[in-house]
């Protein structure tokens, strides 16, 4: 804008870009905020991550393929912004496959059953403990559980967000689930929960 002229006319492509950004990206602001908060566990940090995510998305809007999953695209940017915001990345954990954790989870179940905790996850009073356990779950397992189990993403979408193969999502997810279940059984014991009927 100059002192003696009106606002600079926007080009047709700028107008079209802004319309598409408004239509496809902005509706996901709440979802991205929730995801950022899950990653950062701190409102002010989530605030910064969300702003940076949408600014990057706007600047690189020309790379978004119309008609594809914009939420997934934004989550990918968000996670990358989050990882870069930390001074160093956590080392990538390579797991063989998830089946060991899937089978190990059955041992956790047996331990829970013996204490009468079969219905442990149905107990509403455990929800805060479950949230805390998820917040404390180490990366990259926490991201996998958040994306698939909390945000209801497919393995494929989660793999794209995390930038890893689908098999890696599966193994991280299974490890995260098993760790959460172990933690909850311990919490229930520490809190002196009365099981339905210890065996």
């Amino acid at each position, binding site marked *: 804008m100059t002192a003696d002229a009106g606002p600079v006319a926007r080009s047709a492509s700028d107008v079209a870009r802004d319309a598409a950004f408004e239509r496809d990206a902005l509706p996901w602001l709440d979802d991205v*905020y929730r995801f950022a908060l899950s990653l950062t566990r701190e409102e002010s940090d989530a605030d910064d991550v969300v702003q940076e995510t949408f600014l990057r998305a706007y600047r690189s809007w020309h790379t978004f393929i119309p008609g594809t999953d914009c939420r997934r695209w934004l989550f990918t940017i968000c996670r990358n912004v989050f990882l870069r915001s930390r001074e160093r990345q956590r080392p990538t954990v390579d797991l063989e496959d998830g089946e060991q954790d899937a089978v190990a989870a059955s041992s956790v*179940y047996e331990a829970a059953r013996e204490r009468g905790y079969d219905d442990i*996850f149905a107990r509403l009073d455990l929800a805060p403990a*479950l*949230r805390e356990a998820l917040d404390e779950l180490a990366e990259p397992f926490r991201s996998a559980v958040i994306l698939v189990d*909390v945000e209801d993403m497919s393995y494929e979408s989660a793999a794209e967000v995390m930038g890893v193969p689908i098999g890696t999502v599966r193994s991280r997810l*299974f490890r995260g689930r098993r760790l959460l279940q172990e933690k909850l059984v311990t919490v229930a014991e520490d809190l002196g929960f009365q099981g339905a009927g210890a065996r």
Partner: protein
Amino acid sequence: MSAPARSQLEELGLSATCAEVLHHLWDYLDDQITPAGAERLRAHIAACKQCQQYEDYQECFLRAVAGLRQELGAPESLRERLAERLKGQGCGCWNKVRREP
């Protein structure tokens, strides 16, 4: 399945298909299994009380985790800050970041 693994299962009183449930239940609950595999697991679980109970437990766990999805919205203060930054980038839809009254 190897002979030692099979005899271990027999020792535990588990049939071969109970072991398959242990290995693949999450794949099954996540719809990450072939239709034939899903049918095989479904048929066994329907006939096996132990596996039914295990499936119930895992389904309950997944529901509990899904229930953690808080219906949080981005705070108005964040929307205001983002609107200003997008405006600074020349974004023409910056005022759409704010919630409609």
